[in-house]
Structures are given as C-alpha cells and as structure tokens.
C-alpha cells in the first residue's frame, strides 16, 4: 500500500474539507486586489501541529493555532493569495506546503494557520 493509499483510506481520513483558491490578483495605483476565488472539496487528514496557544501581549491576548493537512489533492501556498481551508467553521491559510513524490504516489503535507482573531 502506498502513502497515497494510506491517506485516502477511510481509517486515516478525518473528513472532507472546503478549500478556497484565488485567481491572480491585480494592482492599480499601488493597491492590490486579490482575484476572485473558487472553492473545491478535498478529503484530508487534519491534525493539530502544536495545539492552540494563548499569545499574551500588551495589546491583548490572542490565539495561535496551526494544523497539519495531509491530502492527495494539490494544495498551494501562493504568495499573496495562498489556499485557504475551512476547519471547524473558520478559514485557515496555508503557509507551508510539502509535495511528497514518494512511496508509490504523490501526496501533500500542508501547514495551515488559523486566521480568526482572537
């Protein structure tokens, strides 16, 4: 069994997730406007990376949280408009994507950061 087969096996998947991908944006008089976005569903295994952590600052407290997403669908950490994935009802931005061409197929390991404040 390949790593790709492992990821798509029912025992490994944690669910179906919505991914938002942006078209190329535009710049007018120095102002950037992201392109339109389209959504698609992926099957993935989503796990906590370090857990949700409280960041204490004089400006207030907030949460930082990163999840690890393993999937056979290509994910992109495009500068400016990285893919976003909906987890637990909020949108998380992908900031690191590893493409693994090994173990009998290609799969992707991505890190997604929670964007909600706090």
């Amino acid at each position: 069994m390949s790593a790709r087969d492992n990821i798509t096996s029912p025992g490994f998947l944690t669910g179906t997730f919505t991914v938002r991908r942006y078209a190329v944006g535009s710049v007018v008089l120095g102002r950037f406007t992201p392109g339109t976005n389209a959504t698609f569903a992926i099957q993935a295994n989503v796990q906590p990376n370090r857990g949700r952590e409280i960041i204490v600052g004089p400006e207030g407290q907030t949460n930082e949280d990163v999840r690890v997403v393993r999937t056979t669908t290509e994910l992109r950490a495009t500068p400016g408009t990285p893919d976003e994935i909906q987890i637990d009802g909020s949108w998380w931005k992908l900031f690191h994507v590893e493409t693994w061409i090994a173990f009998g197929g290609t799969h992707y390991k991505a890190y997604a950061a929670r964007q909600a404040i706090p």
Partner: protein
Amino acid sequence: MINWPPLEDTISAWILASAPIAADRLLWAGQNAPRPEPPYIVARMAAVRNIGQDWDELTYDGLFAQHAVHGTRLVTLRLQAFGGATGNASALALLSSIVNYQRLPSRLAALNAGGVGIASVGPVQAIDGVINSATFEPRALLEVTFHATSQVVETSPFIEFVEFERVPEEV
C-alpha cells in the same frame, strides 16, 4: 484627518510618471500582496508629524455651529526599489529618476492638484540584499517628505440669540 486614499493616489501617479516601471510594479507596503517581478517599487507612509499649530474655523448655520480644525502635516514617504544592477531600470536609477523629474511643472501641478507639496527629497541609497539564498538583488531606498493638510470637523447645536420675557407677577 488626512484624507488618505486620494493622497495615496496622487503619490502613486507621481511615482509612476517618473520611474520607468509598469503600472502594476508599484505597491503600497503591508498589503500581503505577492512580490512582483523586478523592477518594482514599494511605497510606505513612514511617519506623520505636525507642522506648527493647528488652527480653528467656526462657521454658523442657523441652528448649528461647525467647528473645524485645520492643520499642516509633514508626511515621510519611504520608497524602496527592487531592480536590476545596471541601466535605467536598476534599483538606484529607478529612485534617482523620481528625484530628477520632481521639479518638472507637470509633476508639481499634479501634486498640487492632489494637495501635496514636496518638502524635501533625501538621497538615494543602495541597500542591496540576497534573495532565494543564491541571488543577489540590487535594492535602493529614498525618503521623500511632503506637506499635506488635515481637517477635522464637528457640528454642535448653536444658540444664536436668547430672548428673555418677563411675566408680570399677579397682584
């Protein structure tokens, strides 16, 4: 307050009129935009400070008084260029071009129309760096200070006159 959007547009047009870059190669900093292909310029409003004292203006309109406070601000614009090493599209040349063109009547007229007056233009400095671990990238820095105006207004009820009427006491 300073009305920032038209001010930014005026500055953007001024930069694009003088620096030989494509229109989409000028970016305001901090937008989380993707990094364009060089040559390009990143602009940033880096500081704002008062010049002298602000002044008041009171106007009356029947039931309301309008209190406006006007002021002059000195704004520091920081421009960073990313470009080639040589030629007219080098990082240093891009920003030098802005300095060279700034006194032309057409440039001054466009700035004046947008409420901007150049106060000082700093030196263009080379601040080269390395990108993608293995690529040397020529970069340059220029600071320009300009005058802009601020205006804040509040409106409050206004009593123009008071008339007293004495009611005779009953005997």
